């Protein structure tokens, strides 16, 4: 028996969050305010995602937690342990086996299925924040779909650098309506958001916002016809599993600057190696 209510939060709070989730799913991409609670971890460490997970988990669920693509990073380990202790749910590192996946900065490489929920931790939910600091103004811009400024930013990037200079937290438009921040995932992951079979929930605890993508929602990365969006990654194959198509981390291996590229998604890499893939695939 645990001393905590199931998944830490009290039932009324979970209901409040579920109502916000339902509203968010009904208006894809719209930021729904919610009464974010204090959690036993610092703001900025996934309090939004944790509250979503707490409101979503059932005793039968199997939870996976990712930070930077890996299951063994500080944030992932502590959040996984938190729910092991407070909800006593089963956990896993295998993407296909998880029913709820909380993530920071990555979307798993393995395709998600209809019986999964992906929960993103969001530091700054407002995609217009750095173009217009006032929340009063940005809400008006969302209300009236005044998104011209967003393309002005992309225009300025191309005029100055020759390319759109956003590489993560790359803004998207949902079902032709709301412009949304996909959280700071690399733009390589953006295409995975669109037409995804799983439910995708986004939680910003510090800023008290929840937004969502119901299954099979159209999500388009903003771009120009003649400067189309490009999901990019390091031009290399994983040094461990040989995959050409997964997102790679660059690891410096000694003081002489020797480097290797390895899969950012550790579960994806492990699964490939278990299936017999290796460096010979890289050739």
């Amino acid at each position: 028996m645990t001393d905590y209510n199931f998944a830490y939060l009290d039932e009324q709070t979970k209901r409040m969050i579920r109502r916000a989730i339902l509203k968010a799913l009904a208006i894809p991409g719209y930021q729904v305010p919610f009464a974010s609670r204090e959690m036993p971890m610092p703001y900025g460490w996934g309090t939004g995602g944790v509250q979503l997970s707490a409101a979503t988990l059932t005793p039968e669920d199997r939870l996976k937690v990712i930070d930077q693509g890996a299951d063994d990073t500080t944030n992932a380990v502590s959040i996984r342990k938190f729910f092991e202790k407070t909800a006593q749910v089963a956990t896993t590192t295998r993407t296909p086996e998880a029913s709820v996946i909380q993530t920071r900065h990555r979307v798993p490489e393995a395709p998600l299925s209809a019986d999964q929920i992906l929960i993103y931790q969001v530091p700054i939910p407002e995609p217009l924040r750095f173009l217009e600091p006032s929340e009063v103004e940005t809400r008006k811009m969302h209300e009236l779909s005044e998104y011209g400024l967003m393309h002005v930013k992309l225009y300025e990037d191309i005029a100055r650098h020759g390319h759109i200079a956003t590489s993560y937290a790359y803004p998207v438009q949902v079902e032709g309506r709301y412009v949304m921040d996909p959280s700071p995932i690399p733009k390589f992951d953006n295409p995975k958001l669109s037409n995804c079979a799983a439910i995708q929930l986004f939680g910003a605890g510090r800023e008290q916002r929840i937004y969502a993508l119901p299954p099979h929602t159209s999500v388009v990365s903003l771009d120009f016809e003649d400067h189309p969006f490009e999901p990019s990654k390091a031009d290399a194959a994983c040094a461990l599993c040989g995959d050409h198509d997964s997102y790679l981390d660059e690891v410096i291996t000694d003081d002489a600057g020797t480097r290797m590229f390895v899969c950012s998604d550790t579960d994806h890499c492990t699964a490939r190696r278990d299936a017999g893939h290796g460096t010979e695939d890289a050739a």
Partner: protein
Amino acid sequence: MTPLLDVRNITKSYGARLGCKDVNFTLWPGEVMGVVGESGSGKSTLLGCLAGQLAPDAGEVIFDTRAEGPRDTLLMAEAERRMLARTDWAFVHQNARDGLRMGVSAGGNVGERLMAVGARNYGDIRTRAADWLDRVDIAADRMDDRPGTFSGGMQQRLQIARNLVTGPRLVFMDEPTGGLDVSVQARLLDLMRGLVRQMGLSAVIVTHDLAVVRLLADRLMVMKDGHVVESGLTDQVLDDPQHGYTQLLVSSVLQV
């Protein structure tokens, strides 16, 4: 013919202080209306009410929309009015800083209105921005510079380009030459006159400078203390002013 703009009984006060009262006029396609008066006469309040920036206490502002013909813009939903403001309307501010994005390049400033109405081809946007910069005499190699590096006259010309790029039918101008040197004013007026004629623009120009209305406006309204005291053809009003206030206004201008 349908008037482009039909203004009826516009009244606006700020608490006990009157902004403007019972202003009526019609603006026909291709016509330029000048509104003159000293500061506090209510002319800027009137312009704000017409352009949807201020909510009048009473009256109607009926605009001949492309899709649905004459409609009272004051009864439109804000989204619709804002759409009008970035397509068929243009607003040239006295201070270019109010009408430009100072942190965005000249090309981006001109391109913004195109992007706001859905332009998504970078090359096309750039070509059209370059064309408009050329039309307002801004050198092509300044396209990627920010307006902060421009002179006052250039900033004002950039503001005009930014406004006209979507081919609006109605332009509101608030003291467009205010704060500029006389020689710069002359060049700007010349440019504006050319554009108004070429594009067949209709405009409402608010100014205290009679030289501006003599050069640009077909018709004139003179405002004092929130009321229109005299109106008519520009030449007629300026050459043969009837109202005492207009006579004072005209006689106080140096004849050149």
